[in-house]
């Protein structure tokens, strides 16, 4: 149970353990995965907190994400400046929220941000249309997409402002037990 690793200081590891849902082993395993994406960019020693960012192309090629139609939005939501390039902190944060130990409210908050394509804190009609297209791989006609979006807004918009706020979204998630 002693400290055999030299990648992080004990305080750093403790901080990671407290801020994510991962155990020490899992954090180290994730660090190795992060490093494997670009061994020449990521130093093996994080004790002096280097400022390393991996570009989105590498993150999006990970096996967990490469087939997910929302991978770009996921990377943008979790990256610091919203462009998809992630530091180790963002990387750990992303996997912590996507893991099965994260509670539903947290996942609902991030799902809202993922579906909010224009980052205005509301899911408006155009955001919904993009979501539907990504969900169905552009197989529906624009007319069908428009119909679906109208129905969704009609059902879920509680304060009747024509778009979905975070509260509307969370209100709906509480009633949907299948949300993952």
């Amino acid at each position, binding site marked *: 149970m002693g400290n055999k690793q030299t990648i992080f200081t004990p305080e750093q590891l403790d901080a990671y353990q407290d801020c994510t849902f991962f155990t020490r082993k899992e954090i180290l395993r994730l660090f190795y995965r992060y490093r494997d994406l670009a061994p020449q960019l990521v130093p093996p020693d994080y004790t002096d907190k280097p400022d390393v960012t991996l570009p989105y192309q590498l993150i999006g090629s990970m096996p967990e994400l490469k087939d997910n139609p929302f991978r770009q939005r996921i990377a943008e939501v979790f990256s610091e400046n919203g462009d998809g390039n992630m530091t180790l902190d963002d990387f*750990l944060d992303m996997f912590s929220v996507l893991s099965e130990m994260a509670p539903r409210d*947290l996942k609902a908050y991030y799902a809202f941000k993922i579906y909010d394509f224009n980052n205005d804190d509301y899911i408006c009609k155009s955001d919904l249309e993009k979501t539907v297209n990504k969900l169905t*791989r552009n197989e529906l006609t624009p007319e069908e997409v428009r119909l679906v979006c109208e129905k969704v807004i009609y059902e879920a918009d509680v304060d009747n402002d024509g778009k979905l706020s975070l509260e509307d979204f969370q209100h709906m998630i509480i009633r949907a037990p299948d949300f993952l």
Partner: protein
Amino acid sequence: MSTSERIKAIQKMPGTMKKKREIRFVSLSSFALQSFRRFGNSLSEYFHLLPLGHKTLKIIGANFGTSVLSYFIFLKWLLAFNFFSFVINFSFITVPQLVAAEPNNLSFTGLELFTGAGYFQETVLYYGFYSNATISKTENGPSYNMQLAYIFTVGIYFVICFLILLFSMAKSFCRNFINPQIHSGIASKLLCIWDFNITNEKAVKLKQKNISMQIKVQNTGEVLNFSATERVVRIVIHLVCWVASLGTAVAACAGVYFLSINNLKEVVKGHKNDLESQAAMLVLPIVASVLNTFMPFFYSWLGHLERFQTPGHQIYVTITRNIILKISIVGILCYYWLNIVAASESQCWETLVGQDIYRLVLVDFIFCLLGSFFGEFLRRIIGTIVCVNLGLPEFDIGRNVLDLIYAQTLTWVGILFSPLLPGIQMISFSIVFYVKKVSLMMNCQPPRKVWRTAQMTTSFMFLLFFPSFLGVLSVIGVTIWRLKPSEECGPFRGLSSMYDAVSEWIKILENYTASKWVVWIYHNLITSELFFFILSVVVLIITYLYWQITEGRKTVIKLLQKQITNEGKEKRLLLEKLWELQRKTENPSMPRGQGQQVSLIVQVLLFQLRAWYDFMGFL
């Protein structure tokens, strides 16, 4: 808040890692930041290694989605029940018996593994072997009352199972069924439908196609209005199908019943141990398993014939028919065991029942493996090489889960008659887990139909609890209270019912002053009807009160929703007024009215704020 609560709150907070680290630094004391907690964390890490097949479950979920994963989680849960039962039966009943075991004079031939008779008859596997004596290693040493141990172990296990099932079911029901949707739910369907667990490319494409098909169906036909004749025709078809399914279930039960009576005649008549009579004993289990395997296909075909309005409806009806068939087969077998076998002239009827159950469990296990082989492996070969239109088979979750429930029901019935049966079932479930996993990965494709996982999981837990577990409880109850145990074997020989062991023990305890409280509890709480009457009345009152609270809360929710809509409208109205005002300020022709309008708007805003606070105070 304590340290651990604070850490949990930090973990659950949405926000970047940087922000969380700052908050953590501010809120936790330096002592809490120390490595003292690291010990607990690394300990919990080692516990994470234990769960069987954790990585397996992740792979299944990634490739096939959460619906198929729910089957494997259910299987693991049942495995936990069997493991618990095996451990307590083994430690409290079998180990003491092994200490005082009589030597076994019969010879062992390989056939015993299938029939359960022969050599196994005189082992700890069956009820008949257990002695009714108080076992003690040394004279005047600590003694172990086998009768009480047997009845209390089985009883306490069932009580614990009851509580676990009840609480799991209630928790699951609360999470998944309360708050039913008011609308048809397309919003939640759309925004919650994406299964972020799936990482396999084929599965992703299939899911996307699935969603687009669903949306198309939703768009085109919402309410299908039928004419009067069409409705009558549909009702007639439904009735005919129900009559057919119930009729076949009754016919199956009658067949099983007459076969078993025949079987009993053979066993009681001649005690020859040759191959033919041993093989004859296997006919009943094989017939039961064949019925259980092939009738579901018939019911699915009926389901296709009926053309239900929604696929969810079809799934529920098919599952109901299957469960009626399986439970009636188990029911008729229990009736046969308790009424016919117990009253027959055989030497040790409990052991006979135990052997029957052993054979049923074993043959069911073999048929499960065969079903996997034929249903999935051969079907894949047919689907890919011979007749390419069929494609790969899908993993039929409903049928497989019902098979598990049937096997678990048999095990629970058999615990009283064969204490080591849960161990056998544990081994069989583990093998089934790995075989199904391998078959799934090799042969099946991800499910094409929509499967509402959370609701189906609750329904399966409910099916496990209600017909299965409660039925078993009533069978065990009848056995313990009403039936006369056999004279020559088992821990309850010579008593007039198994429960008499407990009443006799209480009579003995009355003579000791130290245990008068046990006797008091027994007479006034457990056997007194007044106590249970009062308990039922109290439970009913509490239920009524909770129901009223729920109704009240529903009204409050409606009021609040109306309030939110009104607030939205008022916000828009005020914003419009502000814009008007802004436009007018650019036109400087009315300076005095401007000041009046500003104060008017400020007054309205303050009034709104006060009304809102009043409303919140009311809550």
